[in-house]
């Protein structure tokens, strides 16, 4: 799993690639939470475009970030999940809970609309 961060005036953008499972979920959670705390940004865009694998542990950590961000008054948007990742999100019943955009650009547009 590789994770990198970009800062946008409206949010933290986290790009995650590789595999999100039991071996990587803890590191992913800790680093995202630290970045949100460090920047003080309430909003988070998770760019999943290059995520190759996710299981229920990975989905759990996504839901956990959603709960944490929304509890702090922000929004979490998942951007560009590949079809197999999107299928897992839908199987878990999370597509009605999480905001999903087709791309990072669409996610930022959605966030801009929510902030305006």
């Amino acid at each position, binding site marked *: 799993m590789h994770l990198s961060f970009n800062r946008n005036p409206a949010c933290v953008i986290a790009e995650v690639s590789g*595999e999100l*499972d*039991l*071996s990587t*979920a*803890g590191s992913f*959670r800790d680093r995202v939470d630290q970045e949100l705390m460090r920047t003080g940004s309430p909003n988070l865009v998770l760019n999943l475009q290059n995520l190759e*694998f996710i*299981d*229920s*542990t990975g*989905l*759990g*950590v996504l*839901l*956990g970030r959603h709960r944490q961000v929304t509890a702090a008054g922000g929004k979490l948007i998942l951007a560009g999940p590949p079809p*197999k990742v999107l299928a*897992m999100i839908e*199987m*878990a019943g999370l597509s009605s809970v999480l905001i999903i955009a087709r791309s990072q650009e669409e996610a930022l547009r959605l966030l801009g609309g929510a902030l305006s």
Partner: protein
Amino acid sequence: MKREMFMRFSAHPSNVSVARIAVATFAAGADFTIPDIEEIKVAVSEAVSNAVLHAYPGGEGEVTVSVTSQGDELVIEVRDQGCGIPDIEKAKEPGFTTVPEHMGLGLSFIESFMDSVSLESEVGSGTAVRMVKKRCP
């Protein structure tokens, strides 16, 4: 022709991906399709994650994975010698979990992606998950 593979490893999170990739490679060699292999990877990940997370609370232990390909069937068995599951029916309920930020969907995903699943467990002796995937003709 019958083909077999056996792995034994410590119940550590880093071994989840090792098991998943090894079984996926084995399944590819048995001519399973890419979509089938993706489903097998999720099922193995869920079964091994459950063993790593739950079998040895506060201690160390081992997980074994055996894989057999014969005819159009791939049989995968994930086994531990840990604490066992006191209430299997409760553990099978979608959404049941004892771990924070986990969804309790592991067994549901396994049942969705594999053609048949059986779960045996004995408190104090361990747990075995047997999963069968049939290759499309």
